[in-house]
């Protein structure tokens, strides 16, 4: 039982990181209907930023976190403006390919600048794991799950309550109409990318605390998993991304622990396929069919 709880906690830890990244995917998808493949690489950008601030400049962890968030936001907004905006009315697949191109560019630029070898991420918090009745929770896990939960609640509040949030929701319904209602769609889309990337920045820091290796391709796998989490939960839906992230994390962890460590990816994809077959728009997705 304790082992089960420990594994569940491991799953929640990974899951909360997936969820943070998935939010970026889902928000962007909700408005521009673009699978932003470069989103995973934003994590890499944030991670390198943090490493430089911590190791080269020798500044403190909060500064590094802030720097990571700021640089991620700048990158995200620039990418949107340069690469995605001109394609807003092109076939969807063109912007998808562009996103793949941006992803390749970021990875290879990092490869050129930093080399292929992973760089170690310094230990920021050196606190012993907390033990409770044979269940043990590492401090990093606690922190990660906590921060993610708080951020998601804040985000949901922002989207529901604030004016900018309402604009985002309106734009995601139909951005041509939103424009007619006096909403500046460009600003709204930029804001969406900025928020998504800020979350990715925080996510990158939390990711590095758990997995202290920073490399040019570090973002692609968690990016892909997070994206799948977003689809699983119902892409475009914020609570869906959170749910999807946690489901993925826990499923992965429990599969590794009780079914097969090596087949865990297959099981995770299997779950995704099953869910989509039963509920084609994801766990929380609404069924929409094209009007004839």
């Amino acid at each position, binding site marked *: 039982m304790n082992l089960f709880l420990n*594994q569940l906690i491991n799953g929640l*830890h990974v899951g909360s990181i997936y969820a943070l990244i998935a939010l970026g995917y889902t928000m962007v998808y909700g408005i521009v209907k673009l699978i932003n493949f470069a989103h995973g690489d934003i994590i890499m950008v944030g991670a390198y930023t943090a490493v430089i601030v911590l190791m080269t400049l020798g500044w403190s962890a909060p500064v590094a976190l802030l720097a990571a968030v700021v640089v991620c936001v700048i990158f995200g907004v620039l990418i949107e403006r340069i690469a995605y905006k001109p394609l807003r009315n092109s076939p969807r697949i063109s912007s998808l390919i562009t996103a793949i191109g941006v992803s390749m560019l970021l990875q290879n630029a990092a490869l050129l600048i930093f080399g*292929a070898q992973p760089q170690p991420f310094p230990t920021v918090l050196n606190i012993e*794991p907390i033990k409770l009745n044979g269940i043990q929770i590492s401090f990093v896990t606690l922190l990660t799950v906590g921060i993610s939960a708080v951020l998601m609640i804040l985000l949901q509040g922002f989207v529901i309550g604030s004016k900018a949030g309402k604009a985002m929701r309106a734009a995601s319904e139909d951005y041509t109409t939103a424009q007619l209602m006096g909403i500046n769609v460009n600003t709204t889309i930029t804001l969406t990318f900025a928020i998504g990337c800020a979350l990715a920045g925080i996510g990158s820091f939390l990711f590095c605390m758990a997995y202290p290796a920073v490399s040019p391709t570090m973002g692609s796998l968690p990016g892909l998993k997070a994206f799948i989490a977003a689809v699983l939960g119902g892409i475009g839906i914020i609570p869906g991304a959170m749910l999807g992230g946690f489901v993925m994390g826990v499923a992965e*962890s429990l599969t590794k622990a009780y079914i097969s460590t090596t087949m865990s990816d297959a099981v995770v994809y299997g779950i995704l396929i099953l869910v989509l077959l039963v509920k084609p728009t994801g766990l929380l997705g609404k069924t929409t069919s094209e009007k004839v």
Partner: protein
Amino acid sequence: MKKRSILSMLVVIALIISAALPVLAEDVIKIGGIGVLSGKYGMYGLAVREGVDLYVKQINEKGGVLGKQVQILWEDTQGNASEAINAYLKLSDMDVVGYIGAVLSGESKALAEVTAEDGVPQISPSATDYDVTTGRPNVFRTCFLDPFQAKAVAEYMAAEGIKKVAVLYDNATDYSNGLYEAFKAKSEELGVEIVAAEAAAYGDTDYKTQLTTIQNAKPEAVFLPYYGADAALILAQAKELGLDVNFYGADGIADIVDYVADKSVLTKVVYTDHFSTDAQSEIAVNFVKAFEAEYGKAPTISFSATGYDAAVVLLAAIEAAGSTDAKAIVDAIKATNLTAVSGNITFDDHNDPIKSIFFQTFDGEGNKFFLKQVDP
């Protein structure tokens, strides 16, 4: 029909390139160096290259081989099997007489496939997988083998009085998988119980689930047949979970020092190496000295030493054969008996060297230090 005209254009470009190639001088002996020189595992190939280049430079200063200068042509495989074949096909049209490579086991097998077709000599400085030389009379290596080092680790653990051990391995790489299989067989024989054997998938970053299972099984030590970069991640997560035991690795883990920020965790790592910079033999001391003079750093990745040795063996064989005939060189390599940097080298029936293993660990600053030498 533009598609055809483009293809023919390509052919013309290819023609120009191939015409430009034979400009190279006639009076040299060319050897090929093939291996991963870029990407995640690039530093292994680069270490090999530094060792090989050093010996080629030394022998050219002494007048070369068969009275000719030696030229080495390097090709990067990016760790990719089909690139290794491409590299061979490219070099084989340039009068290359022998090959050093490849670096990783997978690409070495691919390279062996094509060198065997032509029967040209190939010496890998670092492919530790058993199958690389199987049924390949022309393929040799200057490193010890995975089964051998895995057995040595099991024996080392048994000697340390360890009774319960866990294994975390990557079942998607033949290196990790092969080490695990050999380790399992030997530890069963020695009565060391494997209380948990957890596999991870290639490219994983999260090992906490496996480590939690391992922790739950309460082992006295963990065997980690991993390369350094992955091992560093595993150690960090083990620390986070409070899994406080010694970790044993094989030769691949040697570069872990580059991937950890907090070097103190390394004091828990024991691993097998092909060479130790603390080695006392005259040739080894001279090698370390020459290497430091040439590159301004110590040969910390031992593949520099085995690479150097591969060059020594290949060029000595060419000298002994008295010609650049492939068959003659292969026979001469087979008859090798010399003292090289990483120990004595003679080849057995399977074209493997019979060599010593160096157990090493790290101090709190990440410097390697020598623990024990195990002779075959």
